[in-house]
């Protein structure tokens, strides 16, 4: 779990996870676009995310595609949110989302 928190402590790495959430399964080149950083820098950050299990890769032909792996964050959630609290927690989070989406309309 230390590796997950260390990986998440960096804003660039969180941005990379945001990009994968928007569109899962991207190549290194795709992830480098719109990021003001060298290919080498992005590659290094992806390595840290992969080491923490937050990103997994699959080869498709000659391209390596990066996917967001929800498992480590799910384990964090399970550690601190008890079984009986989950339904309420989910409902209250949804209440907030509904109210705030309404405000954005």
């Amino acid at each position, binding site marked *: 779990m230390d590796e997950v928190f260390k990986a998440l402590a960096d804003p660039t790495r969180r941005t990379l996870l945001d990009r994968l959430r928007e569109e899962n399964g991207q190549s290194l080149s795709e992830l480098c676009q719109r990021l003001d950083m060298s290919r080498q820098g992005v590659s290094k950050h992806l390595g840290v995310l992969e080491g923490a299990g937050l990103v997994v890769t699959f080869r498709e032909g000659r391209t390596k595609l990066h996917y967001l792996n929800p498992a480590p964050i799910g384990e964090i959630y399970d550690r601190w949110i008890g079984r009986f609290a989950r339904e*309420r927690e989910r409902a209250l989070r*949804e209440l907030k989302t509904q109210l*705030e989406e309404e405000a954005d309309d």
Partner: protein
Amino acid sequence: MTEREFVYVTYIEATPERVWEALTSGDFTEQYWGGGRIESDWEVGSPVRHVKHDRGMDWEGEVLEYDPPRRLSYTMIAREGDPPLPCRLPARAERIDRETHPRARPPGREGAEGSRLRLACDPLEPQVAL
């Protein structure tokens, strides 16, 4: 001493009046309570029911406090499954004032209109509930 089973505090970008509506309107509760809606006339002493889409009911309780748009409290007693214990659910929504709570807002959203919602579940002794 009250032992709290569950405590939830969150900042919501909406007025306390809207938060209140989200907590008490049947139509609104349907949008976030997966699989049902909360129904009550919200008079103190009236029943509160969680009615599922198949018209079954998994819990019911009684309105203890109704003071819009700030303080709401009702009991929840399981008819089937969750909640595991009979409990009392107090909720409070308060306007977050920029001067008094400068740090209550998420970074970058300091100018927005918002509320803080606090909600808890306090177990009731089973004999009290029955």
